[in-house]
Protein backbone atom coordinates (compact mmCIF):
# COMPACT_ATOMS: atom_id res chain seq x y z
CA UNK A 1 0.00 0.00 0.00
CA UNK A 2 1.37 3.37 -1.00
CA UNK A 3 2.47 5.57 1.86
CA UNK A 4 0.38 8.70 1.83
CA UNK A 5 1.87 12.12 2.56
CA UNK A 6 1.37 13.55 6.03
CA UNK A 7 -1.27 16.26 6.41
CA UNK A 8 -1.38 19.26 8.72
CA UNK A 9 -4.85 20.63 9.25
CA UNK A 10 -5.15 24.38 9.80
CA UNK A 11 -8.43 25.50 11.35
CA UNK A 12 -8.89 29.25 11.72
CA UNK A 13 -11.62 30.36 14.05
CA UNK A 14 -13.09 33.26 15.91
CA UNK A 15 -16.05 32.70 18.20
CA UNK A 16 -16.83 29.33 16.71
CA UNK A 17 -17.98 27.58 19.86
CA UNK A 18 -21.37 26.59 18.50
CA UNK A 19 -20.19 24.09 15.90
CA UNK A 20 -16.48 23.70 16.59
CA UNK A 21 -16.64 20.37 18.37
CA UNK A 22 -18.59 18.75 15.58
CA UNK A 23 -16.15 20.08 13.03
CA UNK A 24 -13.12 18.93 15.01
CA UNK A 25 -14.57 15.47 15.41
CA UNK A 26 -15.05 15.17 11.66
CA UNK A 27 -11.38 16.06 11.21
CA UNK A 28 -10.32 13.55 13.85
CA UNK A 29 -12.47 10.88 12.23
CA UNK A 30 -10.39 10.93 9.06
CA UNK A 31 -9.22 7.51 7.95
CA UNK A 32 -6.00 9.17 6.88
CA UNK A 33 -5.23 10.76 10.21
CA UNK A 34 -3.69 14.24 10.15
CA UNK A 35 -0.24 14.49 11.69
CA UNK A 36 -1.34 17.65 13.50
CA UNK A 37 -4.36 19.90 13.82
CA UNK A 38 -3.61 23.56 14.44
CA UNK A 39 -6.48 25.67 15.74
CA UNK A 40 -5.60 29.30 15.12
CA UNK A 41 -7.82 31.36 17.35
CA UNK A 42 -8.30 34.98 16.43
CA UNK A 43 -9.02 36.24 19.95
CA UNK A 44 -12.37 34.57 20.52
CA UNK A 45 -14.52 35.77 23.38
CA UNK A 46 -16.70 32.66 23.59
CA UNK A 47 -15.88 29.08 24.62
CA UNK A 48 -13.72 28.32 21.59
CA UNK A 49 -10.61 27.71 23.68
CA UNK A 50 -12.29 25.59 26.33
CA UNK A 51 -13.88 23.43 23.63
CA UNK A 52 -10.54 22.96 21.86
CA UNK A 53 -8.27 22.25 24.81
CA UNK A 54 -9.64 18.77 25.68
CA UNK A 55 -8.65 17.62 22.20
CA UNK A 56 -4.98 18.20 22.92
CA UNK A 57 -4.48 14.51 23.54
CA UNK A 58 -5.72 13.88 20.01
CA UNK A 59 -3.02 16.09 18.56
CA UNK A 60 -5.05 19.29 18.44
CA UNK A 61 -2.93 22.32 19.22
CA UNK A 62 -4.62 25.54 20.29
CA UNK A 63 -2.75 28.67 19.18
CA UNK A 64 -4.03 32.07 20.18
CA UNK A 65 -3.18 34.92 17.84
CA UNK A 66 -1.41 37.61 19.82
CA UNK A 67 -3.14 40.29 17.77
CA UNK A 68 -6.20 40.08 15.53
CA UNK A 69 -5.16 38.67 12.16
CA UNK A 70 -8.46 38.04 10.43
CA UNK A 71 -9.31 34.89 8.57
CA UNK A 72 -6.58 35.21 5.94
CA UNK A 73 -3.91 36.24 8.42
CA UNK A 74 -4.81 33.36 10.71
CA UNK A 75 -4.51 30.86 7.90
CA UNK A 76 -1.19 32.34 6.87
CA UNK A 77 0.08 31.97 10.41
CA UNK A 78 -0.99 28.35 10.33
CA UNK A 79 0.82 27.75 7.05
CA UNK A 80 4.03 29.01 8.58
CA UNK A 81 3.66 26.81 11.65
CA UNK A 82 2.57 23.62 9.93
CA UNK A 83 5.03 20.79 9.40
CA UNK A 84 3.08 18.33 7.26
CA UNK A 85 3.83 17.42 3.68
CA UNK A 86 0.37 18.63 2.80
CA UNK A 87 -1.67 21.48 4.25
CA UNK A 88 -5.44 21.21 4.64
CA UNK A 89 -7.78 23.95 5.81
CA UNK A 90 -10.85 23.45 7.94
CA UNK A 91 -13.51 25.77 9.24
CA UNK A 92 -15.22 25.70 12.58
CA UNK A 93 -18.66 24.84 11.25
CA UNK A 94 -18.32 22.44 8.33
CA UNK A 95 -18.20 18.66 8.29
CA UNK A 96 -15.61 16.59 6.46
CA UNK A 97 -16.51 13.18 5.13
CA UNK A 98 -14.30 10.51 6.79
CA UNK A 99 -12.25 9.82 3.67
CA UNK A 100 -11.62 13.42 2.65
CA UNK A 101 -7.95 13.60 3.47
CA UNK A 102 -7.24 10.13 2.16
CA UNK A 103 -8.89 10.84 -1.17
CA UNK A 104 -6.96 14.01 -1.64
CA UNK A 105 -3.66 12.66 -0.28
CA UNK A 106 -3.92 9.81 -2.78
CA UNK A 107 -4.04 12.34 -5.58
CA UNK A 108 -0.84 13.93 -4.39
CA UNK A 109 0.83 10.56 -4.01
CA UNK A 110 -0.11 9.67 -7.56
CA UNK A 111 0.87 13.01 -9.07
CA UNK A 112 4.11 14.62 -7.90
CA UNK A 113 3.36 17.60 -10.10
CA UNK A 114 0.08 18.34 -8.31
CA UNK A 115 0.23 21.59 -6.34
CA UNK A 116 -3.24 21.80 -4.85
CA UNK A 117 -6.46 19.89 -4.76
CA UNK A 118 -10.09 20.82 -4.10
CA UNK A 119 -13.34 18.87 -4.20
CA UNK A 120 -17.06 19.26 -4.43
CA UNK A 121 -18.92 20.79 -1.50
CA UNK A 122 -22.55 20.31 -0.52
CA UNK A 123 -24.30 23.09 1.41
CA UNK A 124 -26.75 21.90 4.06
CA UNK A 125 -29.11 23.65 6.42
CA UNK A 126 -28.17 23.59 10.05
CA UNK A 127 -30.86 22.16 12.29
CA UNK A 128 -31.45 25.65 13.68
CA UNK A 129 -32.94 26.91 10.41
CA UNK A 130 -35.55 25.54 8.08
CA UNK A 131 -34.99 27.81 5.10
CA UNK A 132 -31.76 29.07 3.56
CA UNK A 133 -30.51 32.47 4.63
CA UNK A 134 -32.17 35.25 2.63
CA UNK A 135 -30.43 35.76 -0.69
CA UNK A 136 -28.83 32.32 -0.75
CA UNK A 137 -29.77 30.48 -3.90
CA UNK A 138 -32.11 27.77 -2.57
CA UNK A 139 -31.31 25.36 -5.38
CA UNK A 140 -27.77 25.07 -4.01
CA UNK A 141 -28.92 23.51 -0.76
CA UNK A 142 -28.11 19.85 -1.10
CA UNK A 143 -26.44 20.39 -4.47
CA UNK A 144 -22.90 19.33 -5.29
CA UNK A 145 -21.00 22.52 -5.97
CA UNK A 146 -17.40 22.93 -7.16
CA UNK A 147 -15.61 23.81 -3.95
CA UNK A 148 -13.36 26.75 -4.70
CA UNK A 149 -13.23 27.32 -0.98
CA UNK A 150 -10.46 26.97 1.54
CA UNK A 151 -12.45 24.26 3.30
CA UNK A 152 -11.85 21.80 0.47
CA UNK A 153 -8.30 22.93 -0.24
CA UNK A 154 -5.34 20.68 0.34
CA UNK A 155 -2.03 22.01 -0.95
CA UNK A 156 1.66 21.29 -0.89
CA UNK A 157 3.59 23.99 1.00
CA UNK A 158 5.32 24.85 -2.26
CA UNK A 159 1.97 26.07 -3.63
CA UNK A 160 2.15 28.96 -1.19
CA UNK A 161 5.80 29.56 -1.91
CA UNK A 162 4.97 29.90 -5.58
CA UNK A 163 1.63 31.67 -5.42
CA UNK A 164 2.01 33.49 -2.14
CA UNK A 165 -0.20 33.35 0.90
CA UNK A 166 -3.79 34.44 1.35
CA UNK A 167 -4.22 38.18 0.90
CA UNK A 168 -5.26 39.68 4.25
CA UNK A 169 -6.81 42.72 2.58
CA UNK A 170 -9.74 40.47 1.65
CA UNK A 171 -12.27 39.50 4.28
CA UNK A 172 -14.64 37.38 2.19
CA UNK A 173 -12.93 36.68 -1.08
CA UNK A 174 -9.48 35.73 0.21
CA UNK A 175 -9.74 32.17 -1.03
CA UNK A 176 -11.28 33.13 -4.38
CA UNK A 177 -8.42 35.56 -4.86
CA UNK A 178 -5.87 32.90 -3.98
CA UNK A 179 -7.41 30.41 -6.42
CA UNK A 180 -7.41 33.04 -9.16
CA UNK A 181 -3.78 33.87 -8.46
CA UNK A 182 -2.73 30.22 -8.38
CA UNK A 183 -4.45 29.67 -11.69
CA UNK A 184 -2.78 32.65 -13.34
CA UNK A 185 0.60 31.42 -12.13
CA UNK A 186 0.00 28.02 -13.63
CA UNK A 187 -0.10 25.91 -10.51
CA UNK A 188 -1.32 22.38 -11.09
CA UNK A 189 -4.77 21.77 -9.66
CA UNK A 190 -7.11 18.84 -9.43
CA UNK A 191 -10.73 18.74 -8.31
CA UNK A 192 -11.89 15.49 -6.78
CA UNK A 193 -15.27 14.82 -8.34
CA UNK A 194 -16.91 13.89 -5.09
CA UNK A 195 -18.42 15.76 -2.16
CA UNK A 196 -15.80 15.79 0.55
CA UNK A 197 -17.13 18.74 2.60
CA UNK A 198 -20.62 19.47 3.84
CA UNK A 199 -20.94 23.23 4.17
CA UNK A 200 -23.21 24.28 7.00
CA UNK A 201 -25.61 27.16 6.46
CA UNK A 202 -26.68 28.75 9.68
CA UNK A 203 -27.92 32.00 11.04
CA UNK A 204 -24.53 33.38 11.95
CA UNK A 205 -22.68 32.88 8.74
CA UNK A 206 -22.41 34.23 5.34
CA UNK A 207 -23.20 37.11 3.36
CA UNK A 208 -26.82 37.61 2.80
CA UNK A 209 -27.64 41.00 4.08
CA UNK A 210 -27.62 43.57 1.32
CA UNK A 211 -24.55 45.24 2.80
CA UNK A 212 -22.64 42.00 2.99
CA UNK A 213 -23.66 40.99 -0.52
CA UNK A 214 -22.42 44.36 -1.71
CA UNK A 215 -19.15 43.86 0.11
CA UNK A 216 -18.74 40.43 -1.49
CA UNK A 217 -19.31 41.87 -4.93
CA UNK A 218 -16.79 44.63 -4.36
CA UNK A 219 -14.31 41.99 -3.27
CA UNK A 220 -14.74 39.88 -6.37
CA UNK A 221 -14.30 43.00 -8.48
CA UNK A 222 -11.01 43.47 -6.67
CA UNK A 223 -10.19 39.84 -7.40
CA UNK A 224 -10.82 40.50 -11.09
CA UNK A 225 -8.68 43.64 -10.93
CA UNK A 226 -5.79 41.82 -9.24
CA UNK A 227 -6.08 39.04 -11.79
CA UNK A 228 -5.83 41.54 -14.65
CA UNK A 229 -2.77 43.15 -13.11
CA UNK A 230 -1.07 39.81 -12.55
CA UNK A 231 -1.85 38.74 -16.09
CA UNK A 232 -0.18 41.87 -17.43
CA UNK A 233 2.96 41.34 -15.39
CA UNK A 234 3.19 37.79 -16.67
CA UNK A 235 2.75 38.72 -20.34
Amino acid at each position, binding site marked *: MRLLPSVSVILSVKNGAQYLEESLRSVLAQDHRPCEILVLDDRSTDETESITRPFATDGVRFIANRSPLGIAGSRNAGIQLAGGQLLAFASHDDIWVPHKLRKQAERFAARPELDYCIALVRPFLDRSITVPPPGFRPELVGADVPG*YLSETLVARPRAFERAGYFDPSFSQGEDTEWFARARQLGLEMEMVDEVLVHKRLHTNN*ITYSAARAQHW*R*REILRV*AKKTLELRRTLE
Partner: protein
Amino acid sequence: MVESATKVRNRHQEIAFRFFLEYCREQGNNCDSCHMDPILSRRYRVNRSKIIFEAFEDETVLINLDSGSYYSFPGSGALVWDLISSGRSIGEVIAQLQHRFPDANAEIESSVLDFIGKVVEERLVLEQDAGGLEATGEGEQPPLRKGKESKFEKPCLQKYSDMQDLLLLDPIHEVDEMGWPNALPAGRNAEALE
Protein backbone atom coordinates in the same frame (compact mmCIF):
# COMPACT_ATOMS: atom_id res chain seq x y z
CA MET B 1 -22.73 62.05 -48.90
CA VAL B 2 -23.73 58.79 -47.23
CA GLU B 3 -20.91 56.33 -47.32
CA SER B 4 -21.34 53.17 -49.27
CA ALA B 5 -22.50 50.16 -47.34
CA THR B 6 -19.27 48.37 -48.13
CA LYS B 7 -17.14 51.10 -46.64
CA VAL B 8 -19.28 51.18 -43.57
CA ARG B 9 -19.10 47.44 -43.14
CA ASN B 10 -15.37 47.44 -43.42
CA ARG B 11 -14.97 50.14 -40.85
CA HIS B 12 -17.28 49.06 -38.11
CA GLN B 13 -18.20 46.04 -36.13
CA GLU B 14 -21.53 44.41 -36.94
CA ILE B 15 -23.53 46.25 -34.33
CA ALA B 16 -22.21 49.67 -35.35
CA PHE B 17 -23.00 48.80 -38.97
CA ARG B 18 -26.59 48.15 -38.01
CA PHE B 19 -26.68 51.61 -36.45
CA PHE B 20 -25.71 53.17 -39.74
CA LEU B 21 -28.12 51.03 -41.71
CA GLU B 22 -30.92 52.04 -39.43
CA TYR B 23 -29.89 55.66 -39.80
CA CYS B 24 -29.92 55.35 -43.58
CA ARG B 25 -33.36 53.77 -43.56
CA GLU B 26 -34.75 56.41 -41.28
CA GLN B 27 -33.26 59.18 -43.36
CA GLY B 28 -34.51 57.63 -46.59
CA ASN B 29 -30.93 57.69 -47.87
CA ASN B 30 -31.09 61.44 -47.85
CA CYS B 31 -27.58 62.49 -48.70
CA ASP B 32 -28.20 66.04 -47.51
CA SER B 33 -28.73 64.87 -44.00
CA CYS B 34 -25.57 64.63 -41.99
CA HIS B 35 -27.10 64.10 -38.59
CA MET B 36 -27.57 60.69 -37.03
CA ASP B 37 -30.11 61.94 -34.55
CA PRO B 38 -32.02 58.72 -33.98
CA ILE B 39 -28.87 56.81 -33.11
CA LEU B 40 -27.05 59.57 -31.33
CA SER B 41 -29.98 60.19 -29.05
CA ARG B 42 -29.94 56.66 -27.72
CA ARG B 43 -29.38 56.21 -24.03
CA TYR B 44 -28.61 53.10 -22.07
CA ARG B 45 -28.72 51.81 -18.56
CA VAL B 46 -26.49 49.27 -16.89
CA ASN B 47 -27.92 45.76 -16.99
CA ARG B 48 -27.95 45.67 -13.22
CA SER B 49 -29.50 42.27 -12.91
CA LYS B 50 -26.29 40.77 -14.23
CA ILE B 51 -23.51 43.33 -14.20
CA ILE B 52 -21.39 44.79 -11.43
CA PHE B 53 -18.52 47.15 -12.03
CA GLU B 54 -15.96 49.30 -10.32
CA ALA B 55 -13.91 52.21 -11.60
CA PHE B 56 -10.26 51.85 -10.68
CA GLU B 57 -7.66 54.49 -11.40
CA ASP B 58 -6.55 53.09 -14.73
CA GLU B 59 -9.52 51.05 -15.89
CA THR B 60 -13.07 50.07 -15.19
CA VAL B 61 -13.61 46.40 -14.39
CA LEU B 62 -16.94 44.67 -14.92
CA ILE B 63 -18.18 41.20 -14.06
CA ASN B 64 -21.12 39.44 -15.60
CA LEU B 65 -22.47 37.48 -12.65
CA ASP B 66 -24.46 35.21 -14.95
CA SER B 67 -21.64 34.12 -17.19
CA GLY B 68 -18.61 34.65 -14.94
CA SER B 69 -16.89 36.65 -17.68
CA TYR B 70 -15.07 39.78 -16.64
CA TYR B 71 -14.14 42.83 -18.64
CA SER B 72 -11.62 45.61 -18.62
CA PHE B 73 -12.21 49.03 -20.13
CA PRO B 74 -8.93 50.90 -19.97
CA GLY B 75 -8.39 54.51 -20.97
CA SER B 76 -11.09 56.08 -23.08
CA GLY B 77 -13.26 52.98 -22.75
CA ALA B 78 -13.61 53.79 -19.09
CA LEU B 79 -14.56 57.35 -20.01
CA VAL B 80 -17.22 56.14 -22.43
CA TRP B 81 -18.56 53.70 -19.87
CA ASP B 82 -18.74 56.43 -17.23
CA LEU B 83 -20.88 58.51 -19.55
CA ILE B 84 -23.06 55.78 -21.00
CA SER B 85 -23.73 54.20 -17.63
CA SER B 86 -24.77 57.54 -16.20
CA GLY B 87 -27.36 58.00 -18.90
CA ARG B 88 -25.62 60.24 -21.41
CA SER B 89 -26.75 59.71 -24.97
CA ILE B 90 -24.38 58.42 -27.60
CA GLY B 91 -24.23 61.89 -29.12
CA GLU B 92 -23.38 63.43 -25.78
CA VAL B 93 -20.64 60.88 -25.26
CA ILE B 94 -19.14 61.64 -28.64
CA ALA B 95 -19.39 65.38 -28.05
CA GLN B 96 -17.65 65.17 -24.70
CA LEU B 97 -14.82 63.12 -26.05
CA GLN B 98 -14.42 65.39 -29.06
CA HIS B 99 -14.22 68.32 -26.69
CA ARG B 100 -11.57 66.57 -24.68
CA PHE B 101 -9.60 65.30 -27.64
CA PRO B 102 -10.15 67.90 -30.37
CA ASP B 103 -7.42 66.44 -32.56
CA ALA B 104 -9.23 63.14 -32.87
CA ASN B 105 -12.68 64.33 -33.92
CA ALA B 106 -12.95 62.15 -36.96
CA GLU B 107 -11.84 59.04 -35.20
CA ILE B 108 -13.95 59.44 -32.10
CA GLU B 109 -17.40 59.03 -33.62
CA SER B 110 -16.71 55.73 -35.35
CA SER B 111 -14.69 54.24 -32.52
CA VAL B 112 -17.24 55.20 -29.89
CA LEU B 113 -20.04 53.68 -31.96
CA ASP B 114 -17.94 50.58 -32.39
CA PHE B 115 -17.28 50.30 -28.69
CA ILE B 116 -20.86 50.92 -27.63
CA GLY B 117 -21.95 48.33 -30.15
CA LYS B 118 -19.77 45.76 -28.44
CA VAL B 119 -21.01 46.81 -25.01
CA VAL B 120 -24.57 46.36 -26.22
CA GLU B 121 -23.72 43.03 -27.84
CA GLU B 122 -22.33 41.76 -24.54
CA ARG B 123 -25.54 42.90 -22.88
CA LEU B 124 -23.65 45.00 -20.39
CA VAL B 125 -26.22 47.73 -20.96
CA LEU B 126 -29.83 47.83 -22.05
CA GLU B 127 -31.40 50.54 -24.12
CA GLN B 128 -33.38 53.10 -22.21
CA ASP B 129 -36.98 53.62 -23.15
CA ALA B 130 -37.44 56.78 -25.12
CA GLY B 131 -39.07 58.55 -22.22
CA GLY B 132 -36.81 57.21 -19.51
CA LEU B 133 -33.97 59.44 -18.53
CA GLU B 134 -31.25 58.01 -16.38
CA ALA B 135 -31.15 58.77 -12.69
CA THR B 136 -28.63 61.54 -13.11
CA GLY B 137 -31.46 63.49 -14.65
CA GLU B 138 -31.83 65.95 -17.41
CA GLY B 139 -29.37 68.76 -17.19
CA GLU B 140 -27.01 67.02 -14.78
CA GLN B 141 -23.67 66.51 -16.39
CA PRO B 142 -21.34 64.43 -14.29
CA PRO B 143 -17.82 65.66 -14.92
CA LEU B 144 -15.72 63.51 -17.19
CA ARG B 145 -13.24 61.60 -15.09
CA LYS B 146 -9.79 63.07 -15.02
CA GLY B 147 -7.62 60.62 -16.83
CA LYS B 148 -3.98 60.55 -17.71
CA GLU B 149 -4.70 60.33 -21.38
CA SER B 150 -3.37 63.22 -23.38
CA LYS B 151 -3.97 61.54 -26.69
CA PHE B 152 -7.12 59.77 -27.77
CA GLU B 153 -6.85 56.04 -28.09
CA LYS B 154 -9.73 54.00 -29.35
CA PRO B 155 -11.86 52.58 -26.56
CA CYS B 156 -11.52 48.84 -26.37
CA LEU B 157 -13.45 46.13 -24.62
CA GLN B 158 -11.27 43.39 -23.20
CA LYS B 159 -13.18 40.27 -22.22
CA TYR B 160 -11.89 37.33 -20.20
CA SER B 161 -13.55 34.04 -19.45
CA ASP B 162 -10.84 32.16 -17.61
CA MET B 163 -12.36 32.53 -14.16
CA GLN B 164 -15.93 31.59 -14.83
CA ASP B 165 -15.96 28.74 -12.35
CA LEU B 166 -14.58 31.01 -9.64
CA LEU B 167 -16.79 34.01 -10.27
CA LEU B 168 -19.96 32.00 -10.69
CA LEU B 169 -19.54 30.48 -7.27
CA ASP B 170 -22.32 31.61 -5.01
CA PRO B 171 -20.86 33.50 -2.10
CA ILE B 172 -21.12 30.73 0.45
CA HIS B 173 -18.19 32.18 2.26
CA GLU B 174 -18.24 32.57 5.93
CA VAL B 175 -18.42 36.08 7.19
CA ASP B 176 -19.22 36.41 10.81
CA GLU B 177 -19.03 40.07 11.65
CA MET B 178 -18.40 39.21 15.24
CA GLY B 179 -15.69 36.83 14.20
CA TRP B 180 -13.79 38.66 11.48
CA PRO B 181 -13.74 42.38 11.97
CA ASN B 182 -11.25 43.10 9.25
CA ALA B 183 -11.06 46.70 8.22
CA LEU B 184 -12.56 47.03 4.79
CA PRO B 185 -10.35 48.34 2.04
CA ALA B 186 -11.25 51.82 0.79
CA GLY B 187 -13.58 51.46 -2.14
CA ARG B 188 -13.61 53.55 -5.29
CA ASN B 189 -16.84 54.32 -7.04
CA ALA B 190 -18.08 50.80 -6.57
CA GLU B 191 -21.36 49.91 -8.15
CA ALA B 192 -23.34 47.14 -6.58
CA LEU B 193 -26.59 45.47 -7.31
CA GLU B 194 -29.38 46.83 -5.27
